[in-house]
């Protein structure tokens, strides 16, 4: 998010609010996608209109597993992102030195 520090306060507030909105939007989408995945994986009988106990347990575990999985991916994603940003900055500094 370069350029952030160049923004006047008012604009920065607008950006931060926008980011907050995007985070709410993304967490709602994640919510919907977990529901869909666990429904698809766990529910396949439609002889009753209520979940039976096997289906309920399956949904709970699926949801728990997905959240733990996503947390781990998030950790790895963060590590790889910061590494590649360091690489990019090193490359840009080298190019800047060669360019001058």
């Amino acid at each position, binding site marked *: 998010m370069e350029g952030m520090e160049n923004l006047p306060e008012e604009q920065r507030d607008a950006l931060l*609010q926008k980011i907050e909105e995007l985070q709410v*939007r993304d967490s709602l989408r994640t919510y919907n996608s977990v*529901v869909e995945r666990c*429904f698809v994986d766990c*529910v*396949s009988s*439609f002889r*009753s*209109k209520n979940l039976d106990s096997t289906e309920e347990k399956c949904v709970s575990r699926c949801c728990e597993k997905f*959240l733990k999985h996503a947390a781990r991916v998030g950790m790895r994603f963060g590590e790889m992102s910061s590494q590649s940003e360091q690489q990019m900055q090193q490359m840009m500094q080298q190019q800047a030195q060669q360019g001058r």
Partner: protein
Amino acid sequence: MASPSQAELAKSLAMAQQELDYRVDLFNRMTSSCFEKCMDRRYKDGELNVGEHSCVDRCCAKYWQVTGIVGQMLGAQGQGM
């Protein structure tokens, strides 16, 4: 009550839009999941037969229950929603 400021108004517009987006997304996923679970996709007919009708009703009910379970678990984690 004092009249709301510009910023508050913008925020409540954004929230209303978020809620609408969320509901539409939920509806679309429920629709396509239940289509795949319940419909005979050889399309010999454009109508839903009796079995398909009751399957859809139950599918919607169960989908909604899954929404509840997942919502509670996410709420407990303090992660979103």
